[in-house]
């Protein structure tokens, strides 16, 4: 597709949107809607325009469809601590009727939101005026049947369920089961299973909290349900392991069915080995055969049938390996990068620093580095590939490691489920790119 050798990489910059610090990005199942969550607890949903027949060189643009305040800041009086309203994750439910549903979560509370359109309204009430004032019943002489008349489209978001008080620690993941009835939520030490209809109870399915907190050495970093098997889920840890669990085996899935772990490379051992092995994101492929994990320096693809090592490893920014001490000092080493698959599972994408993001084609083994920035891109221009010069002589157009801006990080990326359209979030901006269809 766009990494084809015969054609230059034609990726167009479509759209930019400035927001509060963006904390999550997610396409819905059809790709028509794109939801973003931010640090201020807001959710902004974009909708793809219907395809314009005259402009065949691109698909529809994304415009703001709905904005609502999902979470508010709270104060935990017992601990004297604030609970941030930052949206950690958004997950869409598959569409069942005219309305759309999504789950959004902050550190402690998950909410199910219904987003519905209203383009008609009833008119002709007998007891109310059109502006809502009540009519004096004695003035009513005839009766009429109210009818629906068209109105300007209004998109409403309303909270339908609030799933609260089930997590002592900070929620890092939510994942909807393929049965579309249950979902899981994971915090640092526990994973809970919920039914979408029931808010006052959840089942604890994983608990790695030690009896003595002083013995704590490992936390849960991400969790996801298998896309096809409703009994299977995985969770990753800060020690670089992934555990696959089968809910049929027992009620409490503390004992894994499979443990995925790559043996450490002794030549690369340092005091930072554990930190950089910590997995920041885990995503199943659409097929369900593979899963991808992101650690600090690399992306790994695992075959679910092979536990002892990944089948593919892609280096995202290996040039940072010699900078780990400085990155530890400024806390950048703890940045949690996400990763995503394209619709056909042939390309994977993840973010890096300096507003760079990377794509790896699993078939051709080619990779590309691109930059998301307004200065370098005008709308509908083709993106220029970037290159970081690790050491030695810097070629023209290359950027040296020392001039990378570590405050500009791309942690959140998303890929349209069907088309080659990607959403990339820098700190404050959302960028949407698509490949150029000739």
């Amino acid at each position, binding site marked *: 597709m766009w990494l084809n050798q015969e054609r230059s990489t034609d990726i167009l910059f479509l759209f930019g949107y400035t927001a509060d610090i963006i904390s999550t990005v997610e396409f819905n199942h059809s790709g028509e809607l794109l939801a973003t969550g931010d640090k201020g607890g807001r959710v902004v949903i974009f909708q793809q325009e219907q395809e314009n027949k005259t402009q065949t060189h691109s698909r529809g643009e994304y415009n703001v469809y709905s904005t609502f305040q999902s979470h508010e800041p709270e104060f935990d009086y017992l601990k004297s601590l604030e609970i941030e309203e930052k949206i950690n994750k958004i997950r869409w439910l598959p569409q069942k009727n005219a309305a759309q549903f999504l789950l959004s979560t902050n550190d402690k509370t998950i909410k199910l939101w219904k987003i519905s359109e209203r383009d008609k309204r009833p008119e002709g009430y007998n007891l109310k005026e059109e502006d809502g004032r009540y009519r004096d019943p004695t003035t009513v002489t005839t009766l009429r049947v109210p009818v629906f008349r068209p109105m300007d489209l209004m998109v409403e978001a309303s909270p339908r369920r609030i799933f609260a008080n089930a997590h002592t620690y900070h929620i890092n993941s939510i994942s909807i089961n393929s049965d579309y009835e249950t979902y899981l939520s994971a915090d640092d030490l526990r994973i809970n299973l919920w039914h979408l209809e029931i808010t006052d109870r959840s089942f604890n399915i994983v608990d790695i909290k030690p009896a003595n907190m002083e013995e704590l050495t490992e936390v849960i970093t991400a969790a996801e349900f298998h896309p096809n098997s409703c009994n299977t889920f995985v969770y990753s840890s800060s020690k670089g392991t992934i555990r696959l669990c089968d809910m049929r085996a027992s009620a409490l899935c503390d004992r894994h069915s499979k443990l995925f772990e790559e043996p450490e490379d002794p030549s690369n051992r340092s005091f930072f080995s554990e930190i950089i092995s*910590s997995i920041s994101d885990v995503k199943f492929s659409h097929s369900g055969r593979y899963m991808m994990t992101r650690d600090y320096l690399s992306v790994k693809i695992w075959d679910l049938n092979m536990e002892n090592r990944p089948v593919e490893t892609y280096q995202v920014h290996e040039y940072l390996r010699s900078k*780990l001490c400085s990155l530890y000092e*400024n806390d950048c080493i703890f940045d949690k990068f996400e990763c995503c698959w394209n619709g056909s599972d042939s390309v994977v994408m993840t973010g890096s620093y300096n507003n760079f993001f990377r794509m790896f084609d699993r078939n051709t083994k080619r990779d590309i580095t691109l930059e998301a920035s307004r200065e370098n891109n005008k709308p509908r221009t083709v993106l220029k590939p970037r290159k970081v010069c690790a050491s030695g002589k810097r070629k023209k157009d290359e950027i040296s490691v020392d001039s990378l801006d570590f405050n500009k990080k791309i942690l959140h990326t998303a890929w349209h489920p069907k088309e080659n359209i990607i959403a990339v979030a820098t700190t404050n901006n959302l960028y949407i790119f698509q490949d150029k269809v000739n």
Partner: protein
Amino acid sequence: METDDREGNRMWEEDSSHKHLLDVSSWINCIVASKTTKDTMFARGIKRKCFDGEEDIEGTLAGFKSVPSYNLQRQSLLDMSLVKLQLCHMLVEPNLCRSVLIANTVRQIQEEMTQDGTWQVINAQNTGQASLDRLVSSDILCRSTKEQNEGKLVPSYSGFSKDFENTPSQDIISDLSTVTSVQAPRNPQSNNVWEMENSQENRGNFQKSLDQIFETLENKNPNSVEDLFSDVDNSYYDLDTVLTGMMNNTKMGHCDVLESFSSQTTTNSNSNCKSDINELDHIVEILVES
């Protein structure tokens, strides 16, 4: 890459949330940079040498040039990690994953330092000139042997603080006067009253570490540097306590303690080494102002 630390400073200078780290760690970096040889970044996985038997002495001397820098870097990393663990976020709970990873790093260093304990004696003998630098840069958070020599006061002290928690309020005044009289002949720099209110070991250690610095400077005895290294009290690196402290979410109190502490140390400093003390006060202020 060799100038990584200098240029590396630039990349996080703009980040205001880490401003407190800027002062301390850029200063640690300077010390590291001045002593290191070409291959300095131990993040590149310096291979640990296993020292079994006498053959190792030759290996030691042969590889001597790289050894002090490794230990110094390791010590700096340890200090940096401890500072990271102790810095508190006033309003929002700290990230548990980050804290666990930092704590694990400290444990790793502690294990390695325990195993390589003999290394540090050799280092101290041959880099005496650098001893003060190392003292200032690396041992801010270490306990001293002098504290250990005054050990009989310490257990009764901690015993007292335990009692203090359980004692009803009317006994407090009599208990306070008892402790003050016991501690008075020692030196004016211990902040007993303050410390009694805080049972957490890490806070006490912070204060004791500064006591140690004052005492060592007063002493100016090179042997004391050896003592520092050979008798490092591993219970300071009791991550259990630090982690427990974090889990108990007593961070608000912790910060208050550090702030009151910094103001007290400036008034109690030894007059013998004024310029050194002032410099250390400055460092302490930077650390506690975070």
